[in-house]
């Protein structure tokens, strides 16, 4: 840490202010959303925020460290199954305990996987993360007497801060109000933590490793250790997302850790733009609405999403946020002329 260049606090202050100009209105929109949208859309938005947390974690590796993981569904599934196991075998109902347990479990798995994976980069890193996450998937799939196999495990609505859902309350009302705000708070906390990480000297060092490994090593950055820590943080964020996802879905199946879901996490991040901090957030929320629309519209939704992905990669490789930024600078230049 000491070797990385530290940016004086004075220089960082405007950056926070600049971020706040965008963040505050968006936060207000998110807070009032349950009053404006119907319950179904609000729950959809909650799903989007949960995936955004996963996307943020994923992007610490792809966008900031330059490592493409094709196994992040593994961490997501670890978080989700931890919650399901807590309910089934420990008979806990508290969401806070779920989150703590999911963090602990994803730390353990990330340490093991990270120890193996960060030795490699590029395609080997991708394949290795994919293979290891599939180990978890096959365990969840085959040990059906523990995990419920393809039937999965049911999870009832949890207690939030010790308060259970009222007997008379409708489940979707609960999810669209109390639980939505719970997710929103967790989301904001995760965004704040990730923002600090990315803008810290540690985050800068990761970007240095991504841009030029040899030079980064020359200035004394211990590359493998930095990658390992990034992998760990990334895995924990995705694990938290997995735990938050469970009450929304009510059911945990091996599909939550299958490799094509890892592909969807990659998709979301690239859709938003992986060279931006906000890219994965925008991408996840947008992807979730898009997919829901496509699934409701046609059974051939995969073609729809696949075509979008191909076009995206061909025409808009910087994603939604990157393209908006490009348009913005172009428009400003036109105005200045």
């Amino acid at each position: 840490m000491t070797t990385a260049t530290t940016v004086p606090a004075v220089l960082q202050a405007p950056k926070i202010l600049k971020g706040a100009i965008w963040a505050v209105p968006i936060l207000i929109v998110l807070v009032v959303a349950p009053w404006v949208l119907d319950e179904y859309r609000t729950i959809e938005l909650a799903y989007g925020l949960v995936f955004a947390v996963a996307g943020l974690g994923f992007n610490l590796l792809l966008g900031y460290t330059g490592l493409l993981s094709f196994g992040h569904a593994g961490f997501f599934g670890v978080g989700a199954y931890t919650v399901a196991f807590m309910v089934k075998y420990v008979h806990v109902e508290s969401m806070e305990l779920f989150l703590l347990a999911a963090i602990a479990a994803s730390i353990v798995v990330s340490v093991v996987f990270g120890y193996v994976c960060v030795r490699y980069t590029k395609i080997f890193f991708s394949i290795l993360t994919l293979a290891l996450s599939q180990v978890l998937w096959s365990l969840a799939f085959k040990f059906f007497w523990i995990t419920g196999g393809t039937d999965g495990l049911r999870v009832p609505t949890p207690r939030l801060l010790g308060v259970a859902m009222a007997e008379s309350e409708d489940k979707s009302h609960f999810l669209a109000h109390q639980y939505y705000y719970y997710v929103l708070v967790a989301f904001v906390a995760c965004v704040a933590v990730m923002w600090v990480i990315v803008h810290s000297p540690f985050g800068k060092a990761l970007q240095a490793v991504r841009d030029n490994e040899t030079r980064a090593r020359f200035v004394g950055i211990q590359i493998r250790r930095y990658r390992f820590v990034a992998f760990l943080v990334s895995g924990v964020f995705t694990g938290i997302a997995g735990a938050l996802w469970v009450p929304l879905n009510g059911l945990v199946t091996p599909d939550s850790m299958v490799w094509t879901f890892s592909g969807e996490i990659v998709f979301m991040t690239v859709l938003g733009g992986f060279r931006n901090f906000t890219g994965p957030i925008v991408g996840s929320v947008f992807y979730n609405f898009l997919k829901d629309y496509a699934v409701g519209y046609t059974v051939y939704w995969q073609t729809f999403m696949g075509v979008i992905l191909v076009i995206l990669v061909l025409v808009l490789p910087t994603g939604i946020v990157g393209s908006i930024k490009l348009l913005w600078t172009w428009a400003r230049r036109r105005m200045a002329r």
Partner: protein
Amino acid sequence: MDIFVIHLFNALLYASVLFLIAGGLTLIYGVMRIVNLAHGNLFALGAFATASAVSGWFAGSQSAWLYLLLPVGALLVAAIGAILEPTLLRPFYRRPEEYQLLVTFGLLMILEDVIRFVWGPYPISATVLFEKMGQVSVGDYVYPKYNLLVIGVGFAAALFLYAFIYRTRFGVVLRATSQDMRRAAALGVNVNAVYVEAFTIGCFMAGLGGAIVVPSQSAVLGMGVDALILAFIVVVVGGLGSLEGAFAGALIVGIVREIGVSLVPELELAILYLIAAIVLLVRPAGLFGKTT
């Protein structure tokens, strides 16, 4: 002893099909440095095409001529490959790997739906080819003759490919392009043509794998994605881009899986993934890969 022979046959059967899938995947990677995530779906496409040719167009027929329909899937997939490479993949060779993986992932999603659209959601098969050949007795046991044919096709494909790549002029050009694309181009090799040919051969093998599998097991949705993961394990064990590696990897995976299935069925898949992870740890480039 007889049961041992049966197990050996099963291992070889599995290895043959795996070699056809993984061989194509590794050939494409070796020449173009692109990992084709849609490769498993090309395999599935071959299976569906052959199954519908046999049990759709010629339903009820018992003629031995039906065996000539086996290559239908392979040829169809090869034709698709010849179209896909120049149109979809070519713009991506200069782009970072992330984009290559993503575009083939998009292709995977599209092909999955193409299969659903053309053949519907139900499994189809071509069992007539499997039953027609009957069985051969191994001591106290019987073994389907068709499976022996599959093993034969797998090994013949390996032999042909070896002869093709190491004994023909085109093979020389292919290997030169694979080693140094720029220098090959400077020496007058039409790199674009080589790429189309290599991709087509890779697709042909995947389609052939699907075609010979479908008489003994049905073609189902999702079979491509499963096959891709197994092919990944094979190429990781053998070394990405190495055909010898794909051959050895397919044999290793085939044998290990057979042992796993008979001893600890629950861990069958986990063992395979763990082997891949261990090989990557010990020899990052795989058993036959070149460390660069």
